[in-house]
């Protein structure tokens, strides 16, 4: 077990290293100039800015410096576009907000998606199945920038205790969490349904039925755990994605989360911000995948030997 954890962590480190390396060079190939402003910079000013952020040095030295600062000093650098602010501060301020929203949303998605998937599988090819799958398909297809405004207009406006957008009242988390949860819930429902159908057709389930085990017992005791394997595989990366925020949802609901930096960082050619996010997200993704793998091992005894 420990060996598995160790080797997976090592893999994560290699992946993150490659990811950052690729991003480091790719972002420098973008057209435009990170310091472009409403007024053309004089060549002197431009050179000074490049000196300030170390961009005047040869590429391999910049690259070495980046790792040196990250590894030895834990310094992700200063943001190019949000002057005077450290990338690490931007991440540490916004991540807890996205985490809170993401966890609630994931909880909602699981409590909605998994039961929906089970119901669909149990009533395979009946109206319950079709209804559940139409809902799931709608959840995948209707994007957040449509759902968000619909929720704002239909719930926040009539309900006095609920605001359209913002992040100052405790209730402000509700609408964005619901908006975010639908897509994930829909995938979960489809994956759970698929897993469940697969398991329900297995021989051991038939044997259990033949022995007269009740339907409820078959599902909860024998089928559910292995049926959730595909859903849990999906939950790993989905978890990492949802707790790092969403640009669209943050923009619609005015949430000071982390998702916006992924887009703004690229838009503003903010090299350090983009790299910091890639590094952070890469590590998070690695950990989330490891957790979901461990959960799988726990759920499926067959995997323990491999």
């Amino acid at each position, binding site marked *: 077990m420990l060996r598995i954890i160790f080797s997976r962590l090592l893999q994560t480190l290699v992946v993150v290293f490659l990811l950052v390396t690729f991003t480091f060079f790719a972002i420098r190939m*973008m*057209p*435009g*100039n*990170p310091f*472009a*402003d*409403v*007024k*053309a*910079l*004089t060549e*002197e*000013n431009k*050179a*000074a*800015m490049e*000196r*300030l952020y170390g961009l005047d040095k040869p590429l391999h030295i910049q690259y070495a410096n980046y790792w040196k600062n990250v590894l030895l000093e834990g310094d992700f650098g*200063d943001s190019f576009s*949000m*002057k*005077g*602010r450290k990338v690490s501060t*931007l991440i540490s*301020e*916004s991540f807890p907000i996205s985490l809170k929203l993401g966890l609630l949303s994931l909880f909602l998605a699981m409590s909605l998606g998994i039961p929906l998937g089970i119901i669909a599988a149990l009533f395979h090819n009946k109206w319950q199945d079709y209804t559940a799958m139409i809902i799931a398909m709608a959840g995948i297809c209707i994007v957040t920038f449509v759902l968000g*405004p619909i929720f*704002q*207009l239909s719930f*926040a*406006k009539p309900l*006095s*205790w609920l*605001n*359209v*957008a*913002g*992040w*100052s*009242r*405790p*209730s402000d988390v*509700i609408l964005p969490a619901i908006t975010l949860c639908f897509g994930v819930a829909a995938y979960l429902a489809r994956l759970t349904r698929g897993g469940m159908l697969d398991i329900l057709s297995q021989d051991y389930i038939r044997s259990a039925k033949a022995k007269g085990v009740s339907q409820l017992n078959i599902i909860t005791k024998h089928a559910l755990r292995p049926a959730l394997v595909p859903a849990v595989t999906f939950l790993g990366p989905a978890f990492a994605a949802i707790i790092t925020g969403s640009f669209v949802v943050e*923009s*619609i*609901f*005015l949430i*000071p989360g982390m998702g*916006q930096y992924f887009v703004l960082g*690229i*838009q*503003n*050619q903010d090299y350090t911000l983009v790299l910091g996010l890639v590094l952070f997200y890469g590590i998070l993704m690695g950990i989330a995948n490891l957790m979901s793998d461990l959960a799988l091992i726990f759920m499926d005894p067959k995997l323990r030997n491999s």
Partner: protein
Amino acid sequence: MIRIIPLLATTALAFVSCERRSDIEIANEENILIIGNSNEPKGLDPHLVSGVLESNIIRALFEGLVVDHPSKDSHSVDGVAFKDQIKHSDDFTEWTFHLNPEAKWSDGVAVTAHDFVFSYKRLLSPDPNWPAKYAEMLYFLKNGEAYHRSKLGHILCGNDPDFPLVWETLREANFEGDSKIKPKKFKGKRFSELNEQDLKKFSPYLTGEDTPDFDQLNSTGSDFESLSTANKKVLFNSIGIDKLNRKQLLHLKDNLSLIKWSDSITTEVKQLVITRILSHHDAGKPKLWDKAQVGVSAINDSTLRLKLRGPTPYLLEVAKHYTWYPVPKHIILKHGKINTAYSSQWTKPENIVSNGPFKLKSWRTNHLLEVERNPHYWDAEEVKLDGIRYLPIRNYYTETRMFGDEQLHLTYTVPSELIPMAKEKYAAELRQESYIGTRFLRVNTLNSPFDNPKVRRAFALAIDQKSICEEILQGGQAPASGIVPPFGDYKPPGLIKFDPKKAKALLQESGYESTSSFPDIDLLTTNSDSGLREAEALQAMWQKHLGIKVRIQQREWSTYLQNQYDFNYDIVVAGWIGDYLDPTTFLELWVTDGGNNNTAWSSKTFEDLLRKAEKTSDITTRMAILSEAEKTIMNDIPVLPIYWYTTNYLIRPEVKNWNPLLLNNHPFKFIEIDKN
């Protein structure tokens, strides 16, 4: 799982039982204004920002010599200085301000004339590491530009009354360098291949036999000594005397003809100029503030004297811009040097002090910026609000919905698609007001077909401005007949008007036989939806009226800007918002190599007119000269005007004293929330 259920139930109850009043009801009770401010501010240092949204915050935190009148354009009321005691010389070149001794920073320290001197010295810092974007606003001060741009000749020779030649004559020499002949611009070309227009650029500097070699020039770098005389002439004249390095100056001293001087300058004077600049280099380039004699001085703690570069009857209009506000010397020097830029911590909430009606309470990134009453403000009793909350709402649709849900007193804007809805639903709350700004197209005058003024004019006249305003924007914008919007005493020449027949005729005259032989043209714009709609309308109009199909090129903001600076575009949609109420805020954009010109257009006639206006103190004459200058630019038309901006926003009825102002710079000290 079972344990979670009561937990959830309590949480749900907590949500339901919590605040039922709207944000506005609470804010009205607290006497706090909530406004949408469009984005996260880039900073709060008045010297380092350049955006409208930052200025909205800075105007609450800081205060200049005078303050905008709450309802009248081009009027001022007391600020740090007493308005009634402002004195100026008859020609408007020397101004004296008496400062209110009660004016204090928010930590209780007095605001003095020395703070102003420090501020102007700071903004004009000549250090290339100093990233101020708006230092030009202080070029109104005498010698401000010379100091900021380290014009050594001007400072060391021109400012010295004992120098044998007056600066007016001496300045004819090539001190600043000529960017038009930079060797980089002619990369890969041979001198003999240049066209007449390009050759003309070199004619002041070269004699008949000189044939420079651009490839050699570009590959030499700093090792100039091996170059031929012709090459040296190009190199030295493109750099200019002020910026030559020590080695180059020593060389010039022995070869005076390498740079363009002027006939009235004797050899002795030339030698003297070089010697002075050399001795500056030898002394290790000491700071030049004292020698530069920039026109700002503190007579005593409460008297500030300004000397200007020329008659400026509208100085008070300029001085209301935030670049003219004082910054706290004692705090800035505590957290760094005078020109420590982004690494200085002085604008952090725990450090910043300000002298305006409000002070910073909290600032959470992308979340909320809040200011509160400044108890040390000299006129604190007159300040009506107890605070302002600025929300960085980038999504204007969300902003409009928040307004409808009673979360905002005031929106930043209304998206054009929502204006018809707002007209119906928020008839009393919607405001549509003139705003001093122009939407226009820049053209790249370096390349064909837009090197031809007739083509440019044809494209301008083929824009159906009225239908862009009425059908796409719907915000009360007006078709622009020129680059300067109409206001006050200024009479725009009004030369551009939609005229498809004339446009077609001009295109035929321009020498392009048929539209099929017309070169491919890209129309550059930003990647916003509104940008695309506008570009598509322009595309359709040119197709319809000229038969020319342009391609739309949408780019991210930074690429969009960089492409303009690199002249990597044909025609680009852009806009400009005036900084102060005077036509020069629009006209100065188009001077040679201006930071916002980006069209490569330049005209001596135009610049001579601007300089002439600079020296004219009679207001009517001056406006006539400026109108003439606009006529010059509109005749040659490197910019095609589209429309004049308006502001469209929603405001709640309880907000009082928010009146239409052309610059949209509302002084927050007068804003009031009427609870009845």
